[in-house]
């Protein structure tokens, strides 16, 4: 009898510990912004890539956690000595989630679609150097360029260059079908996107069985969800004020890294009073970047141009417009701006904008400008500010790497319009000598600091907070992505 009881006690014990013994294989990650849709080839919002990049969609190359180019759907490639012909050897067994086979026809389709007249690709410039894509056989793609392009392999690893199939390209916004290790399961608007493991993935199967991205914009709700364990972490945690407490808790890992996010006070260069360079410079003198960083999280570095200080070719231009209230006031007076003039700043949901806006408003008040703060939702921001340029000023972080080209575009939301910059940029992309390229990168930065279309604030830090048992999360964000293909649970 005693033996019997012992056996059942053992059985109960086994039943209780059973679930804990099985390693966890699901992940729930928080994100501040909800993507407007899920097609990375049809929109600029970083939130799209933060869900789909490397998880659902793949390109010929892929960018790893260090920002280096790795093989993706192309297992290898060769470049001709003149730098004009790229021959990609494609994965033979790759297929889309709907069964469509991946071959050179897909590459040709994807690249040609991206530059087509009706393309809504946010980075058409990536594909502009391409003359043609040829398919000598289904497993080989030969891409010919107009001119040597140093960043070509990197660009082809960005979400904008993801491979899409002709039969599903039109519906990827709501129902993304890619070749990646995770399959889109469902999207509960306003709440979450669910992915599950792709059973027939061509490569190494990911450790996670299911991944959920939860959208929580409110810092206090985000902090509460992390503390309660409702979610496993945030790659970009919006409540830095709670870090001290999180650091003291061994259940959480707090990992501070860098991003490519150039946080700027973007100004509508076609709207008064920002048409006047003296006004823009006055704003730069009025805003104390160090204090702004201190107020937001204490992490991140001031920037003086549209460039991350640690990237190759960076020029230190932070000191060009030092905090100087008297000078700011003098410049405003010179420009004929009366004290008490009101400017409207539209603020998207992230903390650097909503909280940063309050700090900047207070700083501008010291030089006699009244900032009217208008909080806008992310979808509104994308529509009003980014698409229709309907704004005076806004605060936003440009997280794409190597994006000096946005100032050379014919039409971009802040309406900087400088032929001098455009020709400088043209000579930069056409330069083949690395030393000359670096020199031109410096000149481009200087030109932007000089013309000051926007007020450059600071390099956005990556404040990662997640369960201490999670392995393989990215420390830095060389590109906007939550690549969870290498994430697993320790135990």
């Amino acid at each position: 009898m005693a033996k019997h009881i012992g056996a059942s006690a053992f059985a109960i014990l086994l039943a209780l510990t059973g679930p804990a013994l099985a390693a966890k294989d699901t992940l729930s990650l928080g994100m501040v912004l909800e993507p407007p849709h899920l097609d990375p080839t049809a929109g600029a919002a970083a939130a799209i890539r933060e869900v789909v990049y490397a998880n659902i969609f793949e390109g010929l190359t892929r960018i790893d956690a260090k920002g280096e180019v790795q093989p993706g759907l192309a297992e290898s490639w060769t470049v001709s000595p003149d730098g004009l012909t790229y021959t990609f050897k494609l994965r033979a067994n790759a297929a889309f989630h709907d069964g469509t086979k991946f071959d050179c026809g897909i590459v040709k389709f994807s690249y040609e679609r991206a530059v087509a007249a009706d393309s809504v690709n946010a980075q058409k410039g990536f594909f502009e150097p391409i003359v043609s894509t040829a398919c000598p056989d289904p497993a080989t793609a030969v891409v010919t360029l107009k001119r040597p392009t140093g960043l070509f392999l990197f660009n082809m690893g960005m979400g904008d260059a993801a491979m899409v199939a002709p039969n599903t390209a039109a519906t990827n916004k709501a129902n993304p079908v890619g070749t990646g290790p995770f399959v889109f399961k469902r999207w509960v608007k306003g709440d979450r996107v669910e992915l599950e493991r792709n059973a027939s993935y061509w490569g190494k199967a990911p450790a996670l069985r299911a991944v959920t991205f939860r959208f929580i914009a409110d810092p206090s709700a985000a902090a509460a969800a992390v503390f309660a364990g409702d979610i496993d972490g945030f790659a970009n945690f919006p409540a830095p004020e709670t870090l001290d407490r999180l650091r003291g808790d061994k259940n959480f890992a707090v990992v501070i890294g860098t991003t490519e996010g150039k946080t700027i006070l973007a100004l509508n260069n076609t709207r008064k009073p920002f048409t006047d360079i003296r006004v823009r410079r006055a704003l730069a003198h009025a805003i104390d970047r160090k204090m702004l960083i201190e107020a937001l999280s204490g992490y991140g570095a001031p920037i003086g141009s549209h460039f991350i200080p640690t990237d190759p070719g960076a020029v230190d231009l932070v000191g060009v417009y030092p905090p100087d209230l008297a000078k700011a006031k003098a410049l405003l007076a010179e420009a004929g701006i009366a004290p008490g003039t009101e400017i409207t700043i539209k603020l998207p949901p992230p903390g650097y904008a909503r909280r940063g806006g309050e700090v900047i408003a207070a700083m501008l008040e010291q030089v006699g400008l009244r900032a009217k703060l208008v909080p806008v939702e992310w979808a509104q921001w994308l529509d009003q500010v980014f698409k229709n340029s309907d704004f005076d000023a806004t605060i936003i972080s440009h997280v794409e790497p190597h994006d000096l080209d946005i100032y050379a575009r014919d039409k971009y939301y802040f309406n900087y319009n400088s032929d001098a910059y455009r020709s400088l940029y043209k000579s930069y992309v056409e330069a083949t000598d690395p030393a000359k390229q670096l020199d031109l990168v410096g000149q481009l930065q200087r030109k932007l600091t000089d013309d000051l279309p926007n007020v450059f604030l600071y390099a956005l830090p990556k404040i990662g907070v997640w369960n201490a048992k999670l392995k393989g999360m990215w420390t830095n964000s060389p590109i906007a992505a939550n690549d969870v293909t290498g994430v697993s649970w320790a135990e």
Partner: protein
Amino acid sequence: MNRNLVIGGTVSLLVLAVALVSLVWTPYPPTRIDILHKLAAPSAQHVLGTDPFGRDVASMIMEGTRNTLGVAIVAVLLGAGLGVPLGALAAARGGWFDALVMRTADLAFAFPALLTAVMITAIAGPGAVNAMIAIGIFNIPVFARVTRGAALSVQARDFVTAARATGRSEAAIVWLHVLPNIAPVLIVQVTIQFALGIIADAGLSYVGLGTQPPAPSWGRMLNDAQTFIYRAPLLAVFPGLAIMLSVLGLNLLGDGLRDLLDPRLESRR
């Protein structure tokens, strides 16, 4: 002397005084940031400490008082200004007009007030003015119903019949006889709606639909303080206390006024 009246009256006057003083003086400009002195504990320089941007909490509470009272006052004026005439007219006219006003009021009551206020501000855009309108709209049926109920009982009394017999117009009767007699009920209702208005404004500001930054408001101060609860718990305490004290004061004042003004209750004491 009525204890509720004294305490409630004192607290309410104090809140009003703070709001009035903030018009001409606050210890610091409430939007002035001083990052180097952020999250300071209460001290001689900053009586209630500073917030995450180094703004003076006492100054923010003072200006927040003014902003909140502004919203509540306009909302009550809007509600009473439209609700009282409607209710009085419904009582005087009776018939289809009475039925129409009261059924519309019933309909309005069927919606949760705060939720609808959220809806209105979400559609019309966040801001203090829209918050005033949203809260005010929900005061209209309250005042209409209270006025009608009280007016009906007055309408039935002898002196009204006498006035009617002497040929007074309905409007004159309402103005000269009904309103003065129901004034105590209305005054009590004003204090109740005022307190509810303060709570509604704090609620709307808390979810970001009320007074917009950089102008301080109690609700948003509470929201902002939430994630700082581990580092600076007092940040949440002060705006919370401000809301509690002002609402408590108004409710006590309302109770006291009812005891004082409503003769029907006096006999029970």
